[in-house]
């Protein structure tokens, strides 16, 4: 009866299967939904959706399917991390602009007005959203980011007339098109795990106990060993800022997956290419920078070095002293990279850039050469390949 609905869900990318469909039918038959549309909505949601990131998509398909509404145009835009947006706004706004925002009634008011304008605009034009983006006199121009990214399009105008629960789309924030799920990354990174016994002896070593008991003429002689722990040490260097901004989310995912997978994970940031200084927190990069030499001294060659960056920069950054975009460097980026790869026995470069675009930039080719070909795309397959290389 609802088979086309399931198909519509699958088409929207919600992994609902026959098992879930049968569960829904079973619950319907058992009378859980009690002939109310709202209950049916709740029931089908609990049976068919298994991750909160799909809840918004489910609401859209449900509304569309059961009321023959027009589908929202285009793919749902991606949400940007809120904190990041805020930082950006703080960074880009001059005091004069801040005053102008205050004159408009503060940040919240401004966002409200923005929403209102966007809503008005949609009722006049067909889907055009240039208006806000290019208006030089509009206060929104000052932001320097595309307001479309804030996800205040169709959903808000719907919001006004929405009465039904699924039309409220309360789960909007949780939807994201994550290509690389953290689980996938974790499983890929798992290959890297080396287990070693460390710490207090708490686990029974059966083989040794049997042998020692036999040697002991049958008197029980317990042998314990330490539990096995993940002993892989990873030094992660992340490129931050500039052209890396569009890859923020993937890097965050990689980082969070890696963090819980390794006991020893050290991370530092660099910009474009590692030079003589690295820093721990990007927030205060000027006061807590650490000399790269010191990092080399602190973390021994048994650490596995993973550099994450799009390797897109001016070729001078790699070849010339003083080529860095933000400071005067005595030695070229390439020299520092060679020093790093020479120190660590295993190293690799992860590149979030699509491999098909690697050929377009000279610096990618140069760094690839410096890494002796150990540059991998930041996809599941790429991470797998990298871990295989690092685990060799």
């Amino acid at each position, binding site marked *: 009866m609802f088979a086309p609905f399931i198909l519509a869900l699958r088409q929207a990318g919600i992994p609902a299967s026959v*098992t879930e469909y049968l569960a829904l039918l079973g619950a319907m038959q058992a009378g859980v939904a009690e002939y109310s549309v709202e209950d049916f909505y*709740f029931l089908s949601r609990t049976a068919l959706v298994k991750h*909160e990131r799909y809840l918004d998509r489910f609401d859209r398909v449900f509304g569309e399917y059961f009321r023959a509404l027009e589908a929202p145009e285009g793919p749902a835009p991606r949400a940007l991390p*809120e904190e990041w947006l805020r930082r950006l706004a703080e960074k880009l706004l001059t005091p004069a602009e801040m005053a102008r925002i205050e004159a408009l009634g*503060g940040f919240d008011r401004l966002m409200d007005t923005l929403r209102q304008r966007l809503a008005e605009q949609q009722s006049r034009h067909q889907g055009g959203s240039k208006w806000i983006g290019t208006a030089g006199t509009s206060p929104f121009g000052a932001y320097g980011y595309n307001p479309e990214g804030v996800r205040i399009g169709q959903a808000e105008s719907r919001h006004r007339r929405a009465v039904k629960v699924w039309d409220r789309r309360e*789960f909007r924030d*949780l939807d994201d098109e994550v290509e690389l799920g*953290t689980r996938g990354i974790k499983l890929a990174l798992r290959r890297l795990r080396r287990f070693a016994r460390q710490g207090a002896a708490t686990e029974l070593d059966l083989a040794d106990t049997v042998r020692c008991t036999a040697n002991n003429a049958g008197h029980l002689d317990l042998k314990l060993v330490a539990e096995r722990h993940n002993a892989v040490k990873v030094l992660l260097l992340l490129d931050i800022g500039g052209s890396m901004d569009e890859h923020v989310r993937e890097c965050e995912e990689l980082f969070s997956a890696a963090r819980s997978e390794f006991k020893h994970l050290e991370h530092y940031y660099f910009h474009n290419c590692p030079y003589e200084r690295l820093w721990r927190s990007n927030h205060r990069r000027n006061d807590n920078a650490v000399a790269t030499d010191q990092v080399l001294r602190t973390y021994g060659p048994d650490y596995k070095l993973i550099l994450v960056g799009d390797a897109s920069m001016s070729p001078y950054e790699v070849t010339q002293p003083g080529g860095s975009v933000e400071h005067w460097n005595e030695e070229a980026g390439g020299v520092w990279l060679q020093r790093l790869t020479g120190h660590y026995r295993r190293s690799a470069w992860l590149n979030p850039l699509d491999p098909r675009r690697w050929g377009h930039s000279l610096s990618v080719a140069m760094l690839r050469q410096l890494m002796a070909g150990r540059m991998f795309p930041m996809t599941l397959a790429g991470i797998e390949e990298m871990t295989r290389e690092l685990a060799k």
Partner: protein
Amino acid sequence: MRFTSTDRYIASRDLEVAVNAAVTLQRPLLVKGEPGTGKTVLAQEVAQALGHRLIEWHVKSTTKAQQGLYEYDAVSRLRDGQLGDPRVHDIGNYILRGKLWDAFDSDEPVVVLIDEVDKADIEFPNDLLLELDRMQFFVYETRQTVAAKRRPVVIITSNNEKELPDAFLRRCFFHYIRFPDRETMQRIVHTHYPDIRQDLAREALEVFFKVRDVPGLKKKPATSELLDWLKLLMVEDLPAEALRSRETHVVIPPLHGALLKNEQDVHLFERLAFLSRRNG
């Protein structure tokens, strides 16, 4: 027997439907949501509402799936063998039952809570697939199959620290506890503190939602934090005016230690308060 809101626990309609679907179809219910929105309490309330006993299995990072079923104590058997204890001839004496065995073996229906399933190893849920699906497992040492006499109601909570495998999800009903809106929150506050002063509750909620709206907070305060904070406010007997600020901009709420659990958040607040004072 149906699960509905009680005088101690406010459940939204969608949560009721989800619980009833899981109870009726005898499938596990996976509950996710922000920390502090009452995931663990839900199991207690469901058990209460259905009149069942609750068996809690709290998962830790070292928990193995096998521990929920049974463990074989080889060491004490070896020792007993040396001491010539007659118990040693029956291997069954050294099988220690786990929480799930207890639940399967119970004559009366029970509710099983598997709390914070995401804390355990990434393969933990996969190791429980068959057990939760068929509600039975095999004990290798004694060659016996333990099957549930009555299928228990299983409630699993997750804090989203790890993604759960698809095969596991397919066997569960899923519910995401949304953060309660203002009206629901008022009801929740009222059920917990029926004798709180009205003006204090109103102002506190006002401040609470304002704090939650501050962008960039690392850990937004949730229901449990609000309840703790209210309790503090009541104990301190603060007047409602202490919470009310005539200006529109941000101030640090009194006793904020109960609401903000992260020094970065407190820091963010101080910065915002400083900015708004300077501009105001």
